[in-house]
């Protein structure tokens, strides 16, 4: 059977793909009237309430815009859930935290080097985007284990910047 879970913010739905059945977390069937207006644009009526929303889907995830708020949609298959459970059981804990670029930009300055002890909130490097300098800070107290970037290097959003252990 192919059943997947659809997670949006704190809401969770199960979707039975063979039968086309959408249920909420309590197991109630969700009844909606969905009309596609254009690629990625929908009119949805939920119990008479009218929503005009936008969904851009990429494989297992999607970005949805409702009233200019943006929500991530994640789809989890049975296998994903199993993998997650196994990882949890094996007792992996996140002792290292990798910080990624919050926006595309240019690394203008490295404030710390690898091997240096830092406190949470200390600036590690400076990213410049749209002419504004943004100091990227340590997410936790620890040691700078690795810095993935050099000065004058451009980064894309979500590129790895540095790891703190």
């Amino acid at each position, binding site marked *: 059977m*192919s059943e*997947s879970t*659809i997670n*949006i*913010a*704190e*809401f969770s*739905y199960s*979707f039975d793909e063979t*039968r*086309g*059945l*959408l249920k*909420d977390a309590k197991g109630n*069937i*969700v*009844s*909606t*009237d*969905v*009309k*596609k207006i254009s690629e*990625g*644009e*929908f009119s*949805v009526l*939920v119990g008479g*309430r009218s*929503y005009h*929303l*936008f*969904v*851009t*889907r990429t*494989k*297992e995830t*999607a970005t*949805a*815009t*409702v*009233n*200019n*708020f*943006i*929500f991530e*949609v994640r*789809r989890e298959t049975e296998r994903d859930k199993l993998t997650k459970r196994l990882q949890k059981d094996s007792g992996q804990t996140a002792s290292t935290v990798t910080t990624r670029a*919050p*926006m*595309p*930009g240019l690394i*203008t300055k490295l404030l710390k080097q690898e091997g240096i002890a830092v406190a949470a909130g200390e600036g590690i490097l400076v990213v*410049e*985007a*749209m*002419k*504004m*300098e*943004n100091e990227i800070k340590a997410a936790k107290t620890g040691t700078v284990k690795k810095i993935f970037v050099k000065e004058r290097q451009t980064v894309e*959003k979500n590129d790895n910047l540095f790891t703190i252990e």
Partner: protein
Amino acid sequence: MKKIRKILIANRGEIAVRIHRSAKEMGIQTVAVYSDPDRTAPHVLLCDEAYSLTGTTSAETYLNIEKILKIAKDAKVDAIHPGYGFLSEKEFFAKSIIDAGLIFIGPRPETIELLGSKTSARDLLSKKNIPIVPGTTKPINTLDEAMNVASVIGYPVLIKASGGGGGKGMRRVDGQEELESAIERARNEASKAFSDDRVYIEKYIVNPKHIEIQILADTHGNVIHLGERECSVQRRHQKVVEECPSIALTPQLRAKMGQAAVEIAKAAGYVNAGTMEFLLDAAMNYYFLEVNTRVQVEHPITEMVYGIDIIKEQIRIAQGEPLSITQNEVKINGHAIESRIYAEEYDNNFLPSTGTITHYQPSEGLGVRNDSGIRVGSEITMYYDPMIAKLIVHGRTRNEALEKMKRALREYKIHGVKTTIPFCEMVVFHPEFVKGTYDINFVAKHYLVPDSKLDKYESSAIAASFISEGPASVKKSLNTINSIQQSKWKLRHRDE
């Protein structure tokens, strides 16, 4: 002076579109210039002619005087309008246009130089008895000098760039220990943003309102003011929501500040449109801040309230005509509010949000104006300013304008990047904004981070849309219409 028949617009985005519109209404031909990523931008699509600046970065394109002047000559334009930002406040740009025998639509180069450097403007006005914020009237050279000045005027102080605005190169310093690094950071930003790393120090006025006066001055010695705009809603020293008039100003104070602005213009020999910015403290004392020697981003709210097209006035002044109105004819009509729509993460420190605009449907209706520089398919890149549109509303009363803004923000549809729309909604719903008693610390004080809370209906709507796009395992080749009908049928069927 000769009549202008053709204008080159040395800018991009919404302001290029804005200038085009007024020029067309005056029967003037328009010439757009564009960078490589802007080949299909709205200003290129709208203008009569468009020429490539070849390149991507601002330095290669919209800041390249040589390329712009070459196009101006080849296209045989009479005048160049600089818009705001880019080269608009560079006196050498104005000068090179005039030297090429063309009209620069803006103040004289020497006025731009005098007022563009905030320190020389402060110097001039302190001699004219216009109140200025305590601080240096000259750029600071050494750390020792900075420390002395700061301790005399007292912390907190602001480090500001001599050569620019928009919050770039500006740093608040609360104590001596922060001074050195703040100056260094401010210098870096200022040198990148304005190619000028000079900075100066000003006293940080606690909890003021930002009030600015719009002026118009012609070549015949007429100077008038068009009242004020209140721009106290700022984040990172950048304006987000502005209104006209300000609730704080009585007609008497408006006349007084308006007169001060007119005096500043006269003292500087000002010609064309300009804005005098002031800080207004709780005791209704005002301090001169700076002059913006160009059209302001927020000029539309003044246009809506006073019924005057500021761009047209700029063009008329530039071709030597006298102002079309006298001070006595300037009358307030209703209330206007502007929300600036930036491609920024409303929930993450206003970081730039880049991407492609896949859907775009701005609000409409009575008293709603949308000045934008985007369309479906626009790529929002990190190369240019993240402001993509301005939503302006006009009502008979402030309350009507407020309700209109609430409605219009909710109606506005953009998908592809995150925008400041949810933030602007928070602002116009906030009791302090509604009361009008807010000051420039409004955003910081209330920590306005939009709460992106979903209700169960919205989340159901999203989930239903998501699955109707077809699960990832389903081949994209499926006929879209069929798949929608099918899933709808299934959903309804199960409902029975």
